[in-house]
């Protein structure tokens, strides 16, 4: 039988160490909403989402109350809209119309974000996919809760450099259209390599075409829990360090598995995956950078950071995998800058640069995330940063992503405020040398060789 020590341990994790379930995300296929009439498509989409997800928020709150565990976000991901709109959208405004429908549906069911205004163009773009990408700035500027992502490369196909070039311009344009709102549109736009079909985390979530009609995916979190556990093994050897992370990740993930199972039962929707992630928030004590410091670094970004992060990421996966029957999504440590107070401190102290962050993305989940760059950064330079990050994903057979915020009218040293879960970010310097001639080449980078691993 459960004893008092165990009960207290769990409740301390929840009350003092910010243990929570970060998101319950319902993936909904919109493939059956396709029609050649744009109004019909929008009507179908609205009906399907509000039908499937009508109880999502209520069930999330009930589970939260029954188990005494906060479930921070309830969200929805949908089939990439480039596919759903291809038969009916003839202009940018048609795609924006779908985005507005998604926004309205999200508000109706009470979810705070909805992902899937997306295109998967890792090898080539159809004219309609290109049209969707060109509609992203307007769609994000005119909606509140819609998130967008574009997959521009994969290990199997190589990198679509035409899409990479286009995305540099789209990110700038999105910043421009939302400049009165601290360029907030860019927070809802992610560029991926090897994007997973079942990611529950925003802004990059979409419901892949390989998925069932409707599934429940859950993202767990708990950097604070890992940090507190590691405080007890200061100065101990790597074996003890790693065992501690593994055991903690196991416990955290078991809670995610329980919530996923209960949500799936209550909503009568199949359980998809649990995403084993250490997802930080700006709250004090909820930071991945603080874990790196606890492992032994003065600041995230100091020499040794990449090794410490590699260790952390690997142990989180090893501990989490056994705790859940199905693991998927992004699974690993996230290192967003603005959403992690420890990262912000590291940048402010001058310990952490864009280049070091890039190295860190080689060994952990996702990539260059929530980084504010000077507003006058050229579109080609943004594309260059994207290309670098995509190359890391492509060669290392992992998911990588870029979410940059060109802070218009601001320069290195200034601070951009995003508010809420998104936090704030100091503007980071970008290498000023040009990559124009590289980015302006047409075509794609071929898929890498899969042998001679050196």
């Amino acid at each position: 039988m459960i004893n008092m020590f165990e009960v207290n341990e769990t409740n301390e994790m929840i009350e003092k160490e910010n243990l929570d379930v970060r998101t319950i995300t319902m993936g909904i296929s919109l493939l059956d909403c396709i029609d050649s009439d744009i109004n019909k498509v929008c009507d179908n989409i609205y009906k399907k989402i509000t039908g499937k997800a009508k109880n999502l928020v209520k069930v999330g709150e009930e589970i939260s109350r029954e188990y005494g565990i906060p479930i921070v976000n309830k969200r929805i991901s949908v089939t990439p809209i480039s596919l759903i709109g291809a038969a009916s959208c003839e202009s940018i405004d048609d795609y924006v119309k779908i985005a507005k429908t998604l926004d309205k549906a999200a508000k109706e069911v009470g979810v705070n974000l909805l992902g899937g205004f997306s295109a998967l163009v890792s090898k080539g773009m159809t004219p309609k996919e290109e049209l969707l990408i060109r509609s992203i700035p307007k769609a994000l500027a005119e909606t509140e809760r819609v998130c967008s992502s574009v997959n521009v490369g994969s290990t199997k196909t190589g990198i679509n450099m035409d899409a990479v070039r286009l995305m540099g311009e789209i990110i700038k344009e999105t910043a421009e259209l939302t400049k009165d709102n601290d360029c907030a549109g860019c927070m809802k736009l992610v560029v991926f390599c090897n994007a997973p079909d079942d990611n529950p985390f925003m802004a990059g979530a979409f419901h892949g075409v390989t998925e069932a009609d409707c599934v429940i995916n859950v993202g767990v979190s708990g950097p604070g829990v890992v940090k507190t556990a590691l405080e007890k093994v200061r100065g101990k050897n790597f074996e003890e360090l790693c065992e501690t992370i593994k055991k903690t990740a196991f416990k955290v993930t078991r809670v995610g598995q329980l919530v996923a199972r209960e949500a799936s039962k209550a909503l009568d929707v199949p359980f998809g995956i649990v995403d084993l992630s250490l997802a930080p928030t700006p709250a004090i004590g909820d930071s991945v950078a603080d874990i790196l410091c606890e492992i032994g670094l003065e600041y995230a970004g100091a020499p040794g950071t990449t090794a410490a992060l590699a260790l952390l990421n690997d142990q989180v996966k090893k501990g989490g995998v056994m705790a859940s029957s199905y693991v998927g999504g992004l699974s690993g440590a996230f290192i967003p800058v603005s959403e992690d107070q420890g990262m912000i401190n590291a940048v402010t102290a001058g310990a952490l640069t864009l280049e070091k962050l890039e190295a860190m993305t080689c060994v952990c989940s996702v990539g260059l995330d929530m980084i504010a760059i000077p507003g006058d950064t050229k579109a080609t330079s943004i594309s260059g940063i994207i290309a670098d990050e995509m190359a890391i994903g492509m060669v290392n057979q992992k998911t990588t992503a870029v979410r940059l915020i060109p802070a218009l009218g601001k320069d290195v040293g200034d601070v951009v405020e995003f508010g809420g879960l998104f936090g704030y970010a100091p503007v980071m310097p970008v290498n000023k040398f040009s990559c124009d001639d590289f980015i302006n080449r047409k075509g794609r980078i071929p898929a890498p060789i899969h042998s001679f691993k050196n």
Partner: protein
Amino acid sequence: MNKTIITVVGKDTVGIIAKTCTFLAEHNINILDISQTIVQGYFNMMMIVDMNNASEKFGEIAEKLEKLGEEIGVIIKCQQEDIFNSMHRI
């Protein structure tokens, strides 16, 4: 049978157990196990209870217990046992 764990934590005072147990009896909740300690003046109690025949829904009971805790000056939490089983048992 779904079991529920009730935890009561706070500064020790007269009648914490009495008030909590009276509430549970009034709502037809059966107590299966109680463990309790006092460390440096702090009261710490865990109860395992059966709420299957309770007179009200789980959410309402949890809310009322929380309020009762505020009146006594302690924190009372009410959670399904599964969260602890999931985390601490393979």
